[in-house]
């Protein structure tokens, strides 16, 4: 029984981790390559969920909605880059923090205005409804497994792009030493536009995929954003590989900590304080892990920047 519970929670943790990775990948590239702190990245995840949900409702097909959400979030990302971010590249980090906070306020409110503040419900597509029997007496939702698979496939594609294409080489070069890349004659303006659009699309894809298992509501990106920052800092800023491993780690720690610690604490404490202490320490675990990792390795597990 406990082994089954552990397996289910571990799968939930991996699936949450993979969604975190899709958000964090764009964030780490934007931060690593462009040296921009983009607080508004979580908003792009929210936009993906909303656009996916309404496009699915408009076309009558979840799959068409998901497919159309990709170019739609890409367009949103490109528009934001042209309107706001382009003017922030040569500014200090704090100016970027305030400006992107302004973008969050604007887009959260715009979403409330357009779709209302009540959470949207998105139905699981018929093809992926129901569960899979993992072992006798243990069912796991098929849709969650599909998210895990889609996320892993996307991570694989991203790895191919970053490690084995010319654009990927430029990305890695940009994360390692940006002034040198510009000095070698690379059009960094175009590279930045590409990175930003790609990041926005990945976050949007994560949002659209997560829509059926989460409540789609204004501000849903904010909580993901802070965990995505934890992921990229643990992984090492600018490193996609680091973000992948850190995202899985954070996802597992977050889900397993929150679900198992209250039970574990019961071994040493009375039930009521055990639940209290377990819940709060479970929520803290990610941050404790981050503080420990940063105290030992301030540049994260896989630092991308040279020198």
């Amino acid at each position, binding site marked *: 029984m406990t082994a089954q519970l552990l397996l289910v929670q571990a799968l939930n943790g991996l699936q949450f981790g993979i969604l975190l990775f899709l958000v964090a990948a764009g964030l780490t590239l934007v931060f690593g390559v462009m040296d921009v702190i983009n607080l508004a990245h979580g908003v792009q995840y929210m936009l993906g969920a909303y656009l996916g949900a309404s496009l699915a409702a408009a076309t009558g097909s979840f799959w068409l909605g998901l497919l159309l959400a990709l170019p739609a979030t890409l367009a949103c990302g490109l528009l934001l880059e042209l309107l706001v971010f382009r003017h922030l590249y040569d500014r200090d980090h704090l100016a970027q923090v305030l400006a992107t906070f302004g973008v969050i306020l604007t887009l959260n409110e715009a979403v409330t205005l357009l779709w209302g503040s009540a959470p949207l419900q998105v139905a699981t597509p018929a093809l992926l409804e129901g569960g899979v029997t993992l072992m006798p007496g243990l069912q796991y939702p098929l849709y969650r497994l599909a998210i895990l698979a889609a996320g892993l496939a996307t991570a694989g594609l991203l790895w191919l792009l970053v490690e084995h294409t010319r654009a990927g080489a430029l990305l890695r070069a940009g994360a390692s030493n940006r002034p040198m890349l510009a000095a070698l004659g690379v059009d960094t303006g175009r590279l930045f536009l590409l990175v930003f659009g790609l990041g926005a699309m990945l976050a949007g894809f994560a949002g659209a995929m997560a829509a059926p298992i989460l409540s789609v509501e204004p501000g849903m990106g904010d909580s993901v954003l802070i965990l995505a920052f934890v992921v990229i800092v643990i992984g090492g800023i600018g490193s996609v590989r680091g973000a992948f491993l850190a995202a899985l780690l954070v996802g597992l720690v977050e889900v397993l900590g929150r679900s198992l610690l209250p039970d574990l604490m019961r071994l040493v404490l009375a039930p009521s304080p055990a639940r209290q202490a377990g819940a709060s320490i479970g*929520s803290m675990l990610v941050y404790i892990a981050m503080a420990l990792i940063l105290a030992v390795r301030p540049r994260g597990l896989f630092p991308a920047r040279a020198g």
Partner: protein
Amino acid sequence: MPASRRAATLPLLLFALLAAAPFLGLGEGWMMTLLARGMILGLAALSLWLVVGGAGLVSLGHAAMLGIGAYAVVALDEARITEALVVAPAAIGAAALFALLTGAVALRTAGVPFIMITLAFGQMAFFTAASLAFYGGDDGYTLYARSTLAGGRWLENRLGFHYLCLALLAGAFLFCHLLLASRFGRVLRAARENPLRVQAVGFSPYPYRLLAYGIAGGMAGLAGFLLANATEFVAPSFLAWQRSGELLFMVILGGLGSPFGAVLGALALLLLEEGLGHLTPHWRLLLGPLLVLAVLFLRGGLVGLPAQLAGTRRHG
């Protein structure tokens, strides 16, 4: 006019305005509440400025200090101790102690890792506060009464509370100025500009930064004491990272160049929110673009505005 005297003119003007506010037709209940809140957040932003502007370290966990100050009021209220002369030092001490303990670890890093470690400690404090069942847990805690001052119920009086907040804000502002001008402040600022050179001259930045971080924590604890008394209610949301973010936005909006920026930024953001809120329920749709425009066009924050205007006039 010499630069130093011009730098003192604006703060004096603002504090005089705040002192006169109750007699300028702003004495209504909600306005006084808003102004008191502005001054308290101004004090909290000022303490954050000491870390961000003074020491050059960006913290995203400052709301924890504010919240610990507020929870010190709660703990003493539960024990039926309401004398401000006991409660306020306890709030300052608790927050300063937390700052010194967490700062000792966090200050081993700088830059982005420092932001994230302070966030981590802030989140730990937040989840701890949420699990304190005997202080209401997630739901928060309603104070039995405001603190008394030397046995008298001065803080219940709206005008009295207004002037208490103003006096503490002005005092803290003066203190920040003196601190930065002192030998301690010079080392702190030098370490912000170039830590390597400071080390070469023979100073270690670490103890200076740690002390500054502790002082900032104590000031934020004092703001927490005032905030708990202003709202007569304390909840874990006081310590949420969004609160830390808000304080940081106030400091940046005001401008990092001088401690006055933090006070100005806090009041400006609060009054702007309130003013836009009167115009439309969707005020964030206006505030968001305003913040973006402020970043794009106000290079030195709000305090830099006069100099920027003068510069444009001269060149244009």
